[in-house]
């Protein structure tokens, strides 16, 4: 009798244990589902959210974020999302709005929803803001300002703060966890920023030519000057006459570096580089823009590394050339 009774107890205990495992299992599985428009926000959200969040990016890091196909499968992903993070400033205007409408998800639909986070809201100063009247003869311009603000690493901090603040509101139980991760992210990033700034310091004032006007924030941060773009106007492919003008200006001002996002065609830039003797860098501009770049820090490690080494080479080759000429 007694033995049977204890067996019953044992079964009861096992059931309770199993139930508790199932329940805790559920609470572990109850991750915040985050969908981002581009990879930069996905990586930062993952650093802050850790294993408490599940993150997917709609666009790939090596894809032009202006021209992403509004694939219906994205609607399915947004439909299940607890949080949407996107760049804003019209970067995704051609594809994200119809996806948000199709997603039928109140958590992310309205700009006032907690799960709807427009990263540009956290940025204090935009560049290339048009204060004079504009029209589309000026090319594919963004009236609110240049949307590529994540190319200044300093802007990663307010964006990360925005993401962390939203995560805390969506999932207050893990507030301390998110806050810790956020603080770690910021301190690591700040340390790196001062490192990058030291690396870039000797090249202050360098004149560079870019393909599209997406480097404004980076150039501003690095102290570089934009000596022109290969596109005659934003979004308009290069034309022979504009290219000829550009090359003349580059030779006059002795511009040694051409930078382009790696999703742009490289043909014209390579030709210009060959003819003017400048170095052409086709660079990743977003996380996962190239294999091995999986975090915001790795992105700038790659950018700063490649740009400074290219500039060192051109500098030394210039010196060599000068010595050779002098000799």
């Amino acid at each position, binding site marked *: 009798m007694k033995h049977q009774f204890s067996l019953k107890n044992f079964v009861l205990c096992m059931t309770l244990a199993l139930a508790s495992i199932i329940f805790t299992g559920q609470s572990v599985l109850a991750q915040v589902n985050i969908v981002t428009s581009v990879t930069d926000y996905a990586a930062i959200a993952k650093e802050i959210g850790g294993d408490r969040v599940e993150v997917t990016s709609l666009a*790939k890091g090596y894809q032009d974020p202006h*021209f992403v*196909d509004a694939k219906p*499968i994205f609607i399915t992903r947004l*439909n299940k999302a607890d949080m949407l993070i996107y760049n804003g400033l019209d970067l995704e205007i051609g594809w994200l709005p119809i996806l948000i409408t199709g997603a039928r998800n109140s958590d992310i639909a309205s700009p006032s929803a907690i799960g709807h986070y427009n990263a540009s809201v956290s940025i204090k100063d935009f560049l290339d803001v048009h204060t004079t009247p*504009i029209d589309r003869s000026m090319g594919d311009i963004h*009236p609110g300002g240049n949307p590529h603000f994540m190319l200044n690493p300093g802007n990663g901090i307010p964006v990360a703060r925005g993401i962390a603040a939203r995560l805390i509101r969506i999932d207050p139980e893990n507030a301390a966890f998110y*806050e810790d991760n956020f603080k770690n992210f910021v301190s690591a990033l700040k340390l790196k920023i001062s490192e990058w700034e030291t690396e870039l310091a000797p090249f202050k004032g360098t004149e560079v030519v870019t393909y599209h006007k997406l480097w404004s924030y980076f150039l501003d941060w690095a102290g570089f000057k934009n000596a022109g773009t290969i596109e005659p106007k934003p979004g308009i492919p290069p034309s022979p006459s504009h290219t000829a003008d550009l090359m003349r200006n580059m030779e006059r001002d002795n511009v040694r570096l051409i930078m382009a996002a790696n999703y742009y065609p490289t043909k014209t830039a390579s030709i210009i580089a060959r003819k003017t003797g400048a170095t052409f860098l086709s660079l990743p501009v977003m996380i996962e823009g190239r294999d091995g770049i999986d975090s915001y820090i790795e992105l700038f490690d790659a950018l700063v590394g490649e740009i400074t080494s290219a500039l060192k080479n051109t500098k030394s080759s210039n010196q060599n050339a000068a010595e050779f000429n002098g000799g």
Partner: protein
Amino acid sequence: MKFRRIFFTLIITLFISPAITQQVFAGEQNDVKSELKELRKMMENMQQRIDELEEKNEALEKQAKEKEETIVVEEETDLTVIETPATERQGFLQKALNTFNPEISVIGIFAAAWYSQDDPIVFAEVDPENTGVNVQEIEIGFQGVIDSYFRFDTFLVFGVEGVELEEAYGTTLFSLPLNSQIRAGRMRAKFGRINQIHRHNQNFVTLPLPAAQFLGEHLNPTSIEANFLVPVPWYMELSALGGSPDVETPTFDRDENANNLARLLYIFHLANFVEVSEALGVSLGGSFATGVNNTGRDERSNMYGIDLFAKYRPLENNPYQEVMLQSEFMYLDADTPEENLENWGWYAQLVYRFAKRWNTGFRYGIIDTNTPVQEEAGDIDGDPAGLFTLIRNEEGEEEEGMLGLFGRTYRLSPMLTFNPSEFSRLRVQYDYLNQDFTENQHAIFLQFQYSLGAHGAHPF
């Protein structure tokens, strides 16, 4: 004796004095040494003192810096800071743009056309009418969010035949049970693919034959539509629509006298999208539509459709190259007082975008029937036993109203498009039309299109 003393003194002085001097100097040296020692000691002390001070200073500085840093970090890491909405920081221009006005767009499509015959055969209302320069359509769009529950999209079309309300519908924005979304108003129905695509987003100057024949320019009933997102690993949407086809289509008509829900138009669509790889997406859909056609009491049209769309676009290296294959099959089973009509048609088009601003394509379209009607059927006042009831509008309207087909018709259309920007377009197209009951027709088009206003979204 005196000399001796002097001598001794001298000797002593000479010999001893160095010793004395030596002694004296040695004492002095000792003094210097000790002084040096002292100095050294002092210096050491001072160094120690300096070190100590420096250390102290460093510590203080560090403390101050830390304090400063913590202040900065506190500012930067303060998660309670309320974000200022971007609009508040924007200039006057942005404010004006961001007020509650709807997004307004105006899109004009024109076509210079040449036809090989005088009274050209034209299948859709917006296709170029005849040789000369034609207005295809001017579409004016007003779009925006109404409140937190609905958005409203309106498109008015000005064409040669006056103004038409092409679309005006509200869409729910809030979560509904079963992942559903309701659209209500007048809208291009989800029957197949081309019927959902506005003219300015289409790839050819003329509408594909089956769409023009069976759906009219577009099938846009005033209706209520429920769309369910089916929970499967891929994208699947089931749509059901009920409403009144109060815009003329050849296939369906409004029964104005009937007080019967069965005489409304019902359309069902199942859409699937599968991402085969990141470069290749395929969508496959099936449609069914049923409604009265008014050729007689209770005469119904049942229409079936299959649509396929595949897009191949490698994301790396060739960012603006893509290949799109689109094909639709439609089958119409229409009752008339005389006989059951069985018409079918399909088209397939391949478009290759070979540069950011350029694309070229080819389309084949065919419509055919198992039950050809006689040519005389078009003559309303003719033979009473004829098939005049096949012509829906007895008021003497044109052939577009014809439900029946005379025979087989196919059309070949190669096309080349240049988009100077996202907002303008130039397109040349050649149409070869072959009908087995009449002469062949050739046509050449030069289409130009302008878009003004809001940046429209690009549907997949």
